[in-house]
């Protein structure tokens, strides 16, 4: 059973370079005054993300822990969450005031999402510079993460992406789940993000939060096959590997 007295565990995942670290730094700046925070980063090849966050000066550097993933960022957040779970439990044991622990996944592909055994809620981050069609491609994180952030919307005009269309595609793919079109130059979008996080905190504290698994893939129903069995498809077209598997 989940313990609503412990800190809320918020996962932030999404492809490389979409702004996961910056989003966490932003949330630290917005929330640090009133909330006990901790951060766990998962880098694939460096401790760049942990160093970025420490140097951003938004949080006591000791509250930012880096977990090594052995080149398997998806494993560390989904099948063998042990290293991350230990890092979170240690932060909780060392800092009694923790109310929110943010876990940043290593930048992976469009199919990587957190296990509900590790996080209570998760944000999937895309950015306009990654291409306006990415939201339409869908995938577990885009479709079913608790929140989808379309980041760097201020860059849309510079990279030839129709911001409104991309947000509309994302919204359509999510069947009503929330989307925030974020830009650090757009105060209203920051407020919307912070407000979403606060609402998750309230639900968590009230003990009514039920972690949702975005799934590796949604089961597809094929009515034309015998017995109408549910089975899972692995859509290879969605795999956009941005790190080298060697």
């Amino acid at each position: 059973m989940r313990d609503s007295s412990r800190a809320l565990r918020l996962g932030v995942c999404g492809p490389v370079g979409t702004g996961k670290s910056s989003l966490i730094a932003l949330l630290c700046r917005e929330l640090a005054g009133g909330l006990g925070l901790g951060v766990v980063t998962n880098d694939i090849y460096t401790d760049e993300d942990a160093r970025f966050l420490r140097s951003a000066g938004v949080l006591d550097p000791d509250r930012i822990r880096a977990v090594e993933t052995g080149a398997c960022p998806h494993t560390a957040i989904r099948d063998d969450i042990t290293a991350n779970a230990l890092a979170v439990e240690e932060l909780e044991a060392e800092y009694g005031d923790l109310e929110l622990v943010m876990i940043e996944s290593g930048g992976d592909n469009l199919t990587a999402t957190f296990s509900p055994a590790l996080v209570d809620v998760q944000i999937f981050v895309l950015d306009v510079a990654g291409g306006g069609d990415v939201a339409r491609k869908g995938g577990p994180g885009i479709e079913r993460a608790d929140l989808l952030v379309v980041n760097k919307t201020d860059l849309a005009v510079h990279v030839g992406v129709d911001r409104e269309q991309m947000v509309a595609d994302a919204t359509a793919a999510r069947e009503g789940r929330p989307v925030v079109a974020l830009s650090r130059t757009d105060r209203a979008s920051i407020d919307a993000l912070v407000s979403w996080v606060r609402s998750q905190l309230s639900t968590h504290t009230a003990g009514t939060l039920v972690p949702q698994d975005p799934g590796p893939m949604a089961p597809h129903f094929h009515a034309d096959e015998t017995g109408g069995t549910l089975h899972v498809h692995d859509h290879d077209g969605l795999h956009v590997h941005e790190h080298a598997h060697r």
Partner: protein
Amino acid sequence: MHAHADSLLLLLADARLPVAGHTQSGTLEPALAGGLTVDDVPFFVATRLRTVTRVEAATAVVALHRIRSGLKLDDVERAWAARTPSPAMRATSRTQARALLRLTSRLWPAPAPPVVELVETPHLDRLEDRRPTSRAVALAHAADRAGLSPRSLARLVAYDDVQTVCAAALKLVPLDPAVVTGWVFDALPLVDRLADEVAGLQLPHQIPASGAPQIEAWAQAHATATRRLFSA
């Protein structure tokens, strides 16, 4: 109904055991960065079995004997630490121990038998009671719960070390995995020999001081490297 010790040995030796094994290379990553080539990896594996892995296997066996005899483990931990001079290797071992203890407390939730002195033995069920435990001692706890013989425990330590290095090799240098499994296959007699040699140890001072200064130095350098896939 209890599982057979052989089945539990398979479980504990399985790379799919959720103890963050994918974060480890058995120091292969800094060794390759330090000049070893692909062709050296089988020799590297054999060297580890004669040196650092021998220390770990012997420590585990002695710890298992002491757990089953109701004796304290502090001098076992001290003997291991004295034979593992690299702080980075000790830190990594203790991190792996926490992952193992976390799992062991789920698989065998009953509290440790009262004969085990909890003064120096981590209480498996409460994080705040966990004192720094080495991986060897954590494995001894698991082996005790699983009913493994000392020889099986030593074999587990040695086999896991070989597989850790070889699995990391597949990520660090592009190879046909059948070749790498051949390295593991060829190392199995060395695994057996190590298990035979340390299985009868019972006293901390019998743990061989067979460290490998170069491996320790590589581990130490790796702990501060900014670009790496694996833990030190």
